[in-house]
């Protein structure tokens, strides 16, 4: 901020070059942390794999070949093509299924985080800004929400509604708002007392405008950290639901579903259960490292 003010006139006559913008400086600081850089690289890799799945996947993830079932990693079939991670109990290529599995994991992750993040942001803003009865109500609701063992509530609700992509996203999204709301609320409580917010109120801005224009942008950073770390959790939850058969239904490849299949063949074909699990571990680890890096860069005081 300081150097911008010092060079105020310069800033006015030419647009700030991208190398001097705030987000770029943050990105540089983030990337300087080796673990965060590794996390970012993993996330880019997994997102890239999911987006480009049809181009990079060596096989059709749904193509069955019962004569080629349960082949070990590195198996070369009669046509000369190699299955690097082997085939499953229906002769489907495990690498291809793992790549396509990233699509469901990331889709559920992004969509559910978008829902719970928006919900939590809204509740946190309102709760922290208005306080009083509204605040009490939402915080008691948060206590109720936290009293449930999450997975059990999720499988109970999905058991009633029936498993589908949409239901999974909605159930995870609607029941994960508490962390966001609490963090945003805490931030708003202190922002509300700051001069620029008080000034906006004194100048006669409506509550909605104060919240959206002045409070929200400043509460965004901790929210982003929570969202990143929550994405990792949601991916694990999605794969757990799929593992229990309550996720996206077969034949769509999901990491959790592949693990459930592999569990049956554990004694004879270890690779079935091993690789999808590694895919989850790798992805979640990457997101966690990125989240930790974001927290340390943006808001080191944040305790999560």
């Amino acid at each position, binding site marked *: 901020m300081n150097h911008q003010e010092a060079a105020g006139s310069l800033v006015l006559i030419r647009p700030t070059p991208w190398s001097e913008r705030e987000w770029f400086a943050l990105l540089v600081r983030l990337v300087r942390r080796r673990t965060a850089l590794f996390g970012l690289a993993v996330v880019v890799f997994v997102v890239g794999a999911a987006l480009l799945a049809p181009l990079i996947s060596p096989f059709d993830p749904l193509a069955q070949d019962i004569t080629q079932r349960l082949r070990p990693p590195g198996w070369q079939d009669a046509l000369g093509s190699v299955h690097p991670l082997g085939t499953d109990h229906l002769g489907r290529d495990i690498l291809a299924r793992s790549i396509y599995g990233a699509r469901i994991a990331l889709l559920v992750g992004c969509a559910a985080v978008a829902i719970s993040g928006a919900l939590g942001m809204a509740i946190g803003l309102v709760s922290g800004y208005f306080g009083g009865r509204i605040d009490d109500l939402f915080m*008691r*609701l948060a*206590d*109720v929400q*936290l*009293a*449930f*063992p*999450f*997975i*059990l*509530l999720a*499988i*109970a*609700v999905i*058991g*009633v*509604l029936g498993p589908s992509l949409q239901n999974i996203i909605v159930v995870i999204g609607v029941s994960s708002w508490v962390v966001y709301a609490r963090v945003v609320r805490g931030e708003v409580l202190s922002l509300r007392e700051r001069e620029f917010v008080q000034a906006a109120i004194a100048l006669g801005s409506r509550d909605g405008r104060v919240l959206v224009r002045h409070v929200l942008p400043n509460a965004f950073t901790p929210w982003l950290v929570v969202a990143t770390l929550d994405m*990792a959790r949601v991916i*694990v939850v999605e*794969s*757990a639901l799929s*593992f*229990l*058969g*309550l996720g996206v239904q077969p034949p769509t490849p999901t990491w*959790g579903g592949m*693990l459930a299949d*592999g*569990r049956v063949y*554990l*004694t004879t074909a*270890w690779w079935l*259960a*091993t690789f*999808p*699990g590694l895919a*989850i*571990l790798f992805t*979640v*680890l990457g997101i*966690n*490292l990125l989240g930790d890096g974001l927290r340390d860069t943006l808001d080191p005081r944040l305790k999560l």
Partner: protein
Amino acid sequence: MKTFLIRRFLQSLLVLFGVSAIVFLILHLTGDPTLLLLPPDATAEEIARFRQVMGFNDPVVVQYVRFLRGAVQGNFGESLRHGEPALDLVVERLPATLELSAAALLIALCVAIPSGILSAVKRNTLLDYVSTVVALLGQSMPTFWLGIMLILVFSVQFNLFPSSGRGDLMHLVLPAITLGLFTTARITRLTRSGMLEVLGQDYIRTARAKGVGEPPVVWKHALKNASIPIVTIVGIELGTLLGGAVITETIFAWPGVGRLSVQAIYNRDFPVVQAAVFLLATTFVLVNLLVDVVYTYLDPRIRFR
């Protein structure tokens, strides 16, 4: 302190009230619980009679009050599959789940607190790096995959531990490690950061300056003050453990509430699901109330808030 505890008790009651509302609503999510509770080949006449008997024609509020009255008396209806009271089935399985969760928590505390402290004291040494990396992996590993891998290595390959069922201590080892790993990782990280923060405080410097030896500084002066957030997280982690037990019990065929509820969902035996969700949530609320009581002894400031 009395007012604090009374207020916390009333708050817990309020939370349980909310829990009951959500448990009640689970069955009404699709709008018509009849279709969930009756087999799909039920005739229209049977459905109408069932609806009448169960009181599903009444206004939802009336139904909820009836449900609440039943829940307070421990009556969640009968299991559709076993014909027994749903709550009895769940309560019967509760000791197994508590045993597993307690063992997991015990492992977590015994591993996490020493390694967290060592990590903080020997900061930036190989030991710290190893413990940090293990904690990170533990936090990123899905429970069910870890369980499967443990079975693969320790049951299938080396035949050291049984892979399923409940019995002697040997049966408990793999499920407890599986369930406890995530919690271990979390508490390790929390202990490390908490200790680092406390070790930088003035009173630690004072203690060192006046000649207190390093072990008492770490174990007495620092740990006592770093233990407060650890106690809080233990209460919260219990929720994680009870939830994680659902998956762990399924993998290891552990006869607890979690496995019962997953089977009940497959069988569409919803009274049992409701009773299980309610009982586990109640357990969680009560344990957290207990944690708050412990808390007031650890941190006297809270008593006067």
